[in-house]
């Protein structure tokens, strides 16, 4: 029988090791798996490479993981936030590395990792400073850059509904990077607001098929990053 449920965020992240690469879903607060990130902070794994579109806000969630000094490097498209200086402070102090990628290139590299495509060419960023160190090649007269796939030891994502097989539905624009990261993580952990038995989801509407998911944690009332930030919350 296939039942990917685990009892708590703590159990779900227990296998993450120092030095692992961890993809973390979300665009801003939409789709950010705060409870899994907080469990990862408690767990203590350090020297992580984090792949995530942003660098968190306030001093909770991803920003708290960074502030705790657990992240050696972040692969990111937009590591700035109007309400957090956590990443900028560490970055200027030279205590965290940044690999900057255009958002669409970041998304496509993650998808490529999940799809077994080792590399692809894209016109994005050709002729800009982000071309540095990348191979250039023209297709139909247009300069393109060679971009390599991204994979991760772990992907931590958030869903609206999961079944025991790990089939997932998302909530609105919280979908963003999560279906891609589910594909590219060797271990994909999902926190889902609702967990149902197989057969309760319409096969036509499943967004992430369960084959991409390893563990499902029921987090019935996930916290909202913006509310936590508004009241100045810190974690831990």
């Amino acid at each position, binding site marked *: 029988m296939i039942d990917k449920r685990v009892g708590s965020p703590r159990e779900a992240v227990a296998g993450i090791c120092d030095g692992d690469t961890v993809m973390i879903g979300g*665009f801003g607060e939409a789709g950010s798996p705060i409870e899994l990130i907080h469990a990862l902070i408690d767990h203590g794994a350090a020297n992580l490479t984090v792949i995530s579109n942003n660098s968190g806000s306030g001093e909770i969630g991803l920003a708290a993981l960074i502030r705790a000094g657990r992240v050696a490097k972040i692969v990111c498209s937009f*590591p700035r936030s109007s309400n957090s200086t956590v990443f900028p402070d560490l970055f200027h102090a030279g205590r965290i590395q940044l690999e900057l990628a255009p958002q669409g290139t970041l*998304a496509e590299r993650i998808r490529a990792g999940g799809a077994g495509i080792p590399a692809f060419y894209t016109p994005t960023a*050709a002729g800009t400073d982000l071309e540095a160190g990348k191979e250039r090649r023209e297709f139909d007269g247009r300069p393109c850059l060679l971009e390599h796939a991204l994979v991760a030891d772990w992907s931590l994502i958030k869903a609206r509904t999961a079944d025991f097989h790990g089939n997932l539905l998302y909530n609105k*624009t919280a979908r963003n*990077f999560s279906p891609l990261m589910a594909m590219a993580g060797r271990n994909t952990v999902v926190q889902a607001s609702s967990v149902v038995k197989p057969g309760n989801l319409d096969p036509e509407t499943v967004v992430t098929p369960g084959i991409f998911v390893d563990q499902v944690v029921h987090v019935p009332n996930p916290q*909202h990053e913006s509310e936590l930030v508004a009241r100045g919350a810190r974690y831990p």
Partner: protein
Amino acid sequence: MKPDVNGLTTHQIARRAAQDIPDGSYVNLGIGLPELIALSLPSDREIVLHIENGLLGMGPSPRQGEGDPELINAGKKQVTTRPGAAYFHQADSFAMIRGGHLDLSVLGALEVAANGDLANWSTGGEDAVPAVGGAMDLVSGVKAVHVLTRHCTRNGTPKLVERCSYPLTGAGVVDRIYTDLAVIDITANGFEVVELSPGVPFDHVAARTAAPLRDGRFSG
């Protein structure tokens, strides 16, 4: 400088830019000034707004207390949906962008060069945290790229220049610029005014443009 020359307000620039968007267009509005276009779309046209974090068919801001923190735009503000909307993931969203499916991208600018180069993501300063988001994808893939910007910076420095001094977002990508002073096309011959804002003389614009400016208003 003549103190009696007043250009458009930012809302007026947005309204002017909105007028040129044809019925049925699929459009991405960049963060900041371009977002104002969403408030100014002509009511007799159906224009589908794309937000790169995963929605086609963006509607206005929600009423107080009715928003969902997980329904946000690229500027991370809460939004709503319109009939005919669809959600999708980032790879599909940027397939729309990179694959040339969007009709128009409207972006802000730090500088625009006479050859169409755009700089809008970084001042290249030592103390800046580099952050690029989706801007490079948008300019590389969308059919037309319009820029919405004040003609000069707060301290009066022209943003329309011969060559960009800031790091590029894309090379040769801008088609048209809407400023408080004029509507300006990028042509094979550089900047060309196609329309002046009411009460703004051509020379006033030319004096605030750091590159040759042609007058294309009567060329048809």
